[in-house]
C-alpha cells in the first residue's frame, strides 16, 4: 500500500486511488462537488484542491485537484496550507455567486452538500455584487422538482443520468455560466433511476416531489434501518417519518447490494403506507371490531373450533416471521405458500437451484465486476431494476481494461469513457421482447420462451459437452449459441442472469445448465424472482395454491387464513371466487385492502414494513432485517403477533422469539438470527435512537395540543428507540437508521461509514447469506421442442413494468401516474394479419377457460411472430403470468 504524507503525517492509503478518495478514506475532510465515489473524477468543480510538494525540500508546492491526482507512493500534500484553504474558499465563493440565498425555503436545506461544503471552506462573506443569472424551471414528472437557479453546475446529474444510468432525456444545454441541466422540453424524466438525482445533486436543483407533498426537514424525520419491499433485490433504505406518516424513502448504503442508488419504484413507491386503503382497524364481518382483542378472540375461536380444517396461505411479500408464524400456528401440512399458481413451480425451482447448485450467486457488487453476461429471458430493468443498473456498469469492464493499457486511472471517468468509446464487455440478451438494457448489449435475440430455453441449453452444451445437447438446432440457433458460448468461455468472470420473468421453467433450467457448464470458480448465476421475500417463502416450502383450491372443493377447508396476499393476483378469478365461496370462514391478515380482504369475515390489520420488524430474503439468499420507522397506531400489529397472541399457543413475546423459533425449527434459516443484532443489543448501555441528534421539532410537534410531551412509544422488539437520545456512534450497520456525521448532513456522509471509499460499511454490511454454493448439481435434461407458431392462437408472454407490475408501489399516487394503460403487445405482421393497428382494440379469448377480454394493441416490432405480450399486474390484468395462450380476434 502506498504511503503518502498529508500535512506532515504519514498515511497508508489504498493502491491506485486518487488523492481525494485517499484523504476521505482516512477520515479527513476535503470538500468536493463533481466527484462522486462511484462515478469517479472529472476535475470540473476545482473544489478539492490541495497543495502537492515535489519532495521534502519543496516548500512552495503547487495547487492540484486532488480528485485528478493519483495518490502515488511518497506523495506529499497539504490540505491545511493557508493558500490552498483560501483557494478552496474562493472556488466556493464563485459557486455561490449565482446560488440563491433561499436555504430557509429550500427543501435541500439541512441535508445540502453545498451548505456543508460552504461551512467547511469557511466562505461566509459575499463580495459579488452583480445580478444572479436566472433560469426557467421545468416540469419533470411526478417524482422530481426542478429548481435550476440553485444549480452550481457540478455536472453530476447528467453524468449519473446519462453515463451511469443510461438515460437520454436529461442533458446539459447552453454554455458559460448559462449551462442548463434539464430536458429538451418539459416532460416526465423517463429513466427508471431518475430519483437518484435527488441524492446525486449536491444542492436543491432536483428534489423529491413526494416529500414536498408533506415536507419535513431531514433533522425532523424519524428514520429506521429498512429494506425495500418492491422487488427481490433487497436494497437497503432509510424511510423517514413524522406525525405518523411516512414522508420519504432514501438510499441506505449497503456495500454488496444497492450501494448508492435506488430505483424509482423503491424510492417513490412508499405511498401505500399512508394510503386510504390501509387496513388500520380489525374488522369482523365488515364492521370495525370493538377492539383488537375482540378480533383476536374471534380468530382463536375459529382456530379452536375447526382444528384440522384450517389452512393458511402465506405470501412472498410478507416477512419470514409472518409466514413462519402462520406455518407454525397451523402446522406445515396446512401451510400453502401463496405464490401465483403459475409461478410456484418456477420460484420453487429457483430456490432449489440456488440451494443445490455449485454456481455462485453474485452480489450486485460482483455483478458489476462481471466481464461477460448472458441474460436469458429476463427484463431485469423491470423486474429487479437495481440489478440492471449493476449490469449496465458491468459492460464497462472492457473500458477499464483499455484504460489500464493506456495508463489512465480507472477513476478518471471522462478519460476512460473517451478511450473506450463504444467498446463494451459482452452482454447478450435473449428475451421475448425488447428490454431496457438492449442499448448496451452486444447482441439481442428475440424468441418465444421455449426457444429461449433451447438457446440456453445449446450454449451450455457448447461450453461443456457434458451438458445435454439440443439435437435439432437450426443453423441460425447454432451460430447464435456459438457467439454467446465463445464470449462466456473467454471471460474471466462470466455471469448468467435469468429468472421467473418470462414464466418458463425450461428457461430457468437452461440458465442453470449454462452456469453449471462454466469453468470451476467461474460459475455465477443470478436468478431473479418477483417479490421481496419470494426466496424466503420458497425456502419455507409451502404447498401449492392449487392444492388448497382442490382441498376446498372437497369441503375439507372450513377456515382459510390469508396472509398479506390478494388471491385474485395469484390465480384466475373464477377459481378464486369458487374457493372463497367454498370456504366457510375467510380470515385476512394484511395491511392493505384488496378484493380478497373485501370478502373476508375477519380482517386483521397488519403493519407494513414501516410499522413492523421482520426479515426478508433477497434474490441472493441474503436475509436482511427491517425495523419499524413509526410505532403502529390503531389496531395495527405485526402479522406474527396476530397469530401468536392467541392464548396458550406460543410463548412468543418478541420478534426475536419468532426468529429463534424459526432458526430452531428450520435449520436452513439458522443464520437468519444474525441478520441484525437482537433487541437486547446495547451500545454502552444505550439503545440506538431513530431520531437524529437535531430532532429540534420534537417539543413543538404537539405544542398546539399540549405542551407536555407524551412518553415516546416503547420498542421492546428491537435495540432501536423512538427517541433522539441514545448511542450516536459505533452503531452496527444493520441498526443504523441513516447516515450523518458532523459537518456532513447530506447522504454524502456515507463516506464516513465505509471501510474505504466504495468499500464495505465499517462493522460489516447488514444481512447474512442463508445460501452458499453447494458442491452438487446435475444437468437439467428436459429440453423443449422448438416452438411453432400456431395458426389460430397466440402464446401470451408476460411483460413486466417497473411501474404497475408490483401491486404495493402501484398504490403510490405519483407512481400510479407512470403506470401504462393495459395493452396487448403484438408483432406488426401479426397485427396486420388481424387487421388491427396501434391503439385499436383486440379481443382475447383466453385458453382454456374461454374468458374474454378486450385490450388495446401496442405494436412491438421485436416480438416474435405468434407471441403476444401481456403486461403483468396492470389494472385489470393478472398479477402473475397465469394466462398462457389466447385466441385473438377483432371486435365485431
Amino acid at each position, binding site marked *: 500500500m502506498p504511503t503518502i504524507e498529508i500535512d506532515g503525517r504519514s498515511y497508508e492509503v489504498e493502491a491506485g486511488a486518487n488523492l481525494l478518495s485517499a484523504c476521505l478514506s482516512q477520515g479527513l475532510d476535503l470538500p468536493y462537488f463533481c466527484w462522486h465515489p462511484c462515478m469517479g473524477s*472529472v*476535475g*470540473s*468543480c*476545482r*473544489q478539492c*484542491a490541495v497543495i502537492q510538494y515535489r519532495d521534502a525540500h519543496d516548500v512552495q508546492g*503547487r*495547487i*492540484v485537484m486532488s480528485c*485528478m491526482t493519483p495518490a502515488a507512493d511518497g506523495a506529499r500534500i497539504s490540505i491545511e496550507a493557508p493558500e490552498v484553504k483560501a*483557494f478552496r474558499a*474562493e*472556488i466556493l465563493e*464563485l*459557486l455561490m*455567486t*449565482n446560488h440563491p440565498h433561499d436555504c430557509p425555503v429550500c427543501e435541500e436545506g439541512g441535508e445540502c452538500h453545498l451548505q456543508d461544503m460552504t461551512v467547511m471552506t469557511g466562505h461566509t462573506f459575499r*463580495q*459579488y*455584487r*452583480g*445580478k444572479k*443569472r436566472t433560469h426557467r424551471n421545468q416540469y419533470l414528472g411526478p417524482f422530481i422538482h426542478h429548481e435550476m437557479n440553485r444549480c*452550481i*453546475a457540478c*455536472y453530476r446529474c447528467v453524468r449519473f443520468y446519462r453515463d451511469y444510468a443510461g438515460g437520454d432525456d436529461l442533458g*446539459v444545454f*447552453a*454554455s*458559460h*455560466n*448559462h*449551462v442548463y441541466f434539464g430536458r429538451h422540453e418539459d416532460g416526465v424524466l423517463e429513466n427508471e433511476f431518475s430519483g437518484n438525482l435527488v441524492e446525486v445533486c449536491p444542492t436543491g436543483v432536483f428534489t423529491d416531489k413526494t416529500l414536498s407533498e408533506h415536507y419535513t426537514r431531514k433533522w425532523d424525520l424519524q428514520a429506521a434501518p429498512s429494506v425495500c419491499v418492491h422487488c427481490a433485490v433487497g436494497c437497503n433504505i432509510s424511510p423517514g417519518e413524522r406525525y405518523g406518516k411516512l414522508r420519504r424513502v432514501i438510499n441506505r448504503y449497503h456495500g454488496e447490494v444497492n450501494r448508492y442508488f435506488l430505483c424509482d419504484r423503491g424510492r417513490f413507491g412508499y405511498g401505500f403506507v399512508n394510503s386510504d386503503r390501509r387496513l388500520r382497524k380489525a374488522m369482523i364481518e365488515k364492521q370495525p371490531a370493538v377492539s383488537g382483542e375482540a378480533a383476536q378472540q374471534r380468530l382463536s375461536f375459529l382456530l379452536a373450533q375447526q382444528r384440522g380444517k384450517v389452512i393458511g396461505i402465506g405470501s412472498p411479500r410478507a416477512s419470514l416471521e409472518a409466514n413462519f408464524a402462520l406455518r407454525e400456528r397451523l402446522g406445515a401440512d396446512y401451510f400453502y405458500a401463496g405464490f401465483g399458481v403459475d409461478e410456484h413451480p418456477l420460484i420453487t425451482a429457483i430456490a432449489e437451484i440456488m440451494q443445490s447448485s455449485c454456481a455462485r450467486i453474485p452480489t450486485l457488487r460482483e455483478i458489476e465486476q462481471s466481464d461477460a453476461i448472458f441474460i436469458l429471458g429476463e427484463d431485469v430493468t423491470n423486474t429487479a431494476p437495481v440489478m440492471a443498473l449493476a449490469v449496465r456498469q458491468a459492460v464497462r469492464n472492457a473500458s477499464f481494461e*483499455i484504460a489500464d493499457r*493506456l*495508463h*489512465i486511472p480507472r477513476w*478518471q471517468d*471522462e*478519460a476512460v469513457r*473517451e*478511450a*473506450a*468509446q463504444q467498446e463494451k464487455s459482452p452482454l447478450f440478451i435473449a428475451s421475448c421482447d425488447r428490454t431496457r438494457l438492449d442499448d448496451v448489449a452486444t447482441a439481442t435475440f428475440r424468441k418465444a420462451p421455449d426457444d429461449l430455453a433451447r438457446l440456453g441449453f445449446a450454449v451450455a452444451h457448447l461450453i461443456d459437452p457434458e451438458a445435454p445437447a439440443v439435437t435439432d438446432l437450426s443453423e441460425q440457433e447454432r451460430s447464435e449459441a456459438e457467439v454467446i458460448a465463445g464470449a462466456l468461455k473467454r471471460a474471466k468472470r462470466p455471469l448468467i442472469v435469468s429468472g421467473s420473468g418470462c414464466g418458463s421453467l425450461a428457461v430457468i433450467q437452461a440458465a442453470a445448465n449454462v452456469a453449471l457448464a462454466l469453468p470451476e470458480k467461474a460459475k455465477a448465476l443470478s436468478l431473479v424472482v418477483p417479490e421481496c421475500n419470494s426466496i424466503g417463502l420458497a425456502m419455507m416450502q409451502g404447498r401449492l395454491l392449487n392444492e388448497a383450491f382442490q382441498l376446498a372443493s372437497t369441503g375439507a377447508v372450513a377456515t382459510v387464513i390469508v396472509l398479506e396476499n390478494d388471491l385474485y393476483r395469484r390465480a384466475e378469478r373464477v377459481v378464486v371466487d369458487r374457493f372463497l365461496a367454498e370456504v366457510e370462514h375467510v380470515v385476512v391478515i394484511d395491511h392493505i385492502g384488496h378484493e380478497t380482504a373485501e370478502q373476508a369475515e375477519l380482517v386483521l390489520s397488519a403493519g407494513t414494513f414501516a410499522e413492523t420488524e421482520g426479515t426478508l430474503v433477497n434474490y441472493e439468499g441474503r436475509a436482511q432485517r427491517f425495523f419499524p420507522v413509526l410505532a403502529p397506531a390503531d389496531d395495527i400489529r405485526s402479522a406474527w403477533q396476530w397469530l401468536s397472541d392467541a392464548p396458550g399457543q406460543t410463548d412468543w413475546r418478541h420478534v426475536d422469539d419468532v426468529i429463534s423459533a424459526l432458526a430452531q425449527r428450520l435449520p436452513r434459516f439458522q443464520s437468519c438470527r444474525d441478520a441484525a443484532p437482537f433487541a437486547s443489543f446495547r451500545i454502552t448501555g444505550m439503545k440506538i435512537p431513530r431520531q437524529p441528534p437535531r430532532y429540534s421539532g420534537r417539543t413543538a410537534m404537539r405544542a398546539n395540543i399540549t405542551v407536555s410531551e407524551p412518553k415516546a412509544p416503547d420498542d421492546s422488539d428491537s435495540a432501536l428507540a423512538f427517541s433522539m437520545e441514545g448511542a450516536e456512534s459505533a452503531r452496527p450497520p444493520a441498526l443504523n437508521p441513516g447516515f450523518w456525521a458532523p459537518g456532513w448532513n447530506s447522504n454524502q456522509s456515507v463516506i464516513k461509514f465505509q471501510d474505504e471509499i466504495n468499500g464495505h460499511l465499517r462493522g460489516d454490511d447488514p444481512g447474512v447469506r442463508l445460501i452458499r454454493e453447494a458442491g452438487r448439481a446435475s444437468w437439467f435434461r428436459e429440453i423443449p421442442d422448438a416452438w411453432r407458431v400456431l395458426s389460430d392462437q397466440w402464446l401470451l408472454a408476460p411483460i413486466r413494468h417497473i411501474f404497475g407490475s408490483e401491486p404495493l408501489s402501484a398504490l403510490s399516487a405519483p407512481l400510479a401516474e407512470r403506470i401504462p394503460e393495459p395493452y396487448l403487445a403484438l408483432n406488426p405482421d401479426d397485427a396486420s394479419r388481424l387487421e388491427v393497428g396501434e391503439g385499436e382494440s383486440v379481443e382475447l379469448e383466453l385458453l382454456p377457460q374461454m374468458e374474454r377480454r378486450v385490450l388495446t394493441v401496442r405494436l412491438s416490432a421485436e416480438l416474435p411472430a405468434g407471441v403476444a405480450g401481456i403486461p403483468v399486474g396492470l389494472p385489470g390484468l393478472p398479477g402473475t403470468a397465469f394466462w398462457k395462450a389466447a385466441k385473438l380476434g377483432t371486435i365485431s
Partner: protein
Amino acid sequence: MIMDMNTPLTKNIKPDRAFATLDNYLSTGGYEGLRIAIKELTPLDVQRAVKDAGLRGRGGAGFPTGLKWSFVPMGEDAPRPKYLVVNGDEMEPGAFKDRLLIERDPHQLVEGVIISAYAIEASMAYIFLRGEYHLGAQRMKQAIAEAYDRHYLGKNILGSDYSLELHVHTSAGRYICGEETALLNALEGKRANPRAKPPFPQISGLWGKPTVVNNVETLCNVPHILHYGVDWYQELGRGEDKGTKLFGASGRIKRPGLWELPMGTPIREILEVHAGGMQEGFRLRGFLPGGASTDFLLPEHLDVPMDYGAIEKAGSRIGTATMIILDDKTCPVAMVLNLEQFFAQESCGWCTPCRDGLPWVVSILQDILNGRGRMDDLDTLARHTRLLGPGNTYCALAPGAMGPLQSALKYFRADFERFIRQNTEGIGRMTTKNTKGFSLSAVEGGQ
C-alpha cells in the same frame, strides 16, 4: 526566387486576392516535400527533420512540433487508426493568419497535412475549420479533391504503401473549439468541453485513438522543411527561434495587416516598417503581442524580438503573433472589458473558475466603467488573475483571459483608479462612450 525563399509560407499569395491553384502551387515546388518524405524518408525521419528544424506550434502555445509527434505510439503494435487533426478554428480576436493560408494557398496546407500524417502513420486526417470560413472550406475541399486526383491523397499515395483520407469539418462555432481537446470532442459530436490532460491526445485523442492536433500555420511549414532542408529552415530565423511566421497587427495603425517575417523580427520593425506606424493623431500606449489572450506590453518593449522566449521574458506570450494595438484615445479599461466579455461568453461552462469567475470580472469592470467601482474591486480583480491562473482551471482559456487583465492592472492601474476615484469623489460618472466603441477589427492587408 530569393524573395520567395525568405517567405516560404506566403510565396504563392499575391496581393490581388486570387488564390494559388494546384498549377500555381506545383510551379513553385509544390508537393516536392511530400515526394521526398514518402519516397526517401521513413516516418521517423520526417519526425526527426521537423524536430531538428526547430519548428514550434504556431497556434499559440509554441510547443515543439517534432516533440509533440514523438509521443505518438509508432510501429506495428500501435493502436489504430491514428489521426492527424488540423486546428483551423481561428477564433482568437485579432487573429486572421490561418484564414490567409487556408483561403489563398490551400494546397500548401494539404501537403503539410499529408507529410505530417505520414510522420505519425495516421490513416485519417481532419481539417477542423472555423464555421465562418466558408470560402476557406470551399477552397480546401477543392484542393483536397485535386489532391485525391493526383494520388497525393487516398490509397497508396504516390505509389507507396502509405494511404491517407482527408476531410474538412466546419465548426458549429465556439472559441473553445480552438482548444485542441475541446476540438476533438466537437469533432466527435460532443459538447466542446476540453478534456483532462493527461491522457494527452497522442495517447487517447479522437475517438480515443492516438491523435495529433496541429495548427494550420504549423503544418504549412512542414512541406518546406522537407523540401528545402533543415539547415535552410533554421537560417530563416533571426534570433532564437527558427523559420518564418505570419505576424499581424490591428488597431489604429496606418496599415493593419499580416506579414510573413522571420522569427525574431523586432516588434518595432513590424509596427513601424510593415504596419506603417500609428495613424495620425494617435499614440501607441501598449499592445497585445500575441492576440487577445496575451499580456499587454508597452512602447518600452518595442525592441523585443518576436521570439517565444524573448516575449515571455518581457512578460507576455507570442500567442498567435497577431498584435492588437492600444492607442492613447482608447480606454484600456473598456478594452479589457471588451476582451473579458468575449472570454466569459466563450467559456464552455465546465470548470468553476472560468465559468463563474469571468462573469464576475466582467461585472466588476462594468461597475468600474459605470461609476460604481470601488478601490477594493481592484484587489478582487487581482485576486481573480491568480485564481483563474494556469493550473487552477481545466484548460488555458481562463488563464489566457487573465493575461490582458493582469497586465492592464499593472500598466494602466491609473486608468482604473481614475474611474473609481471619480465615482468615490462624487464628481459624477465618466463618459462610457468607449465601452462599446472599442472594436477589434481584423483587416487583411497586402504585403
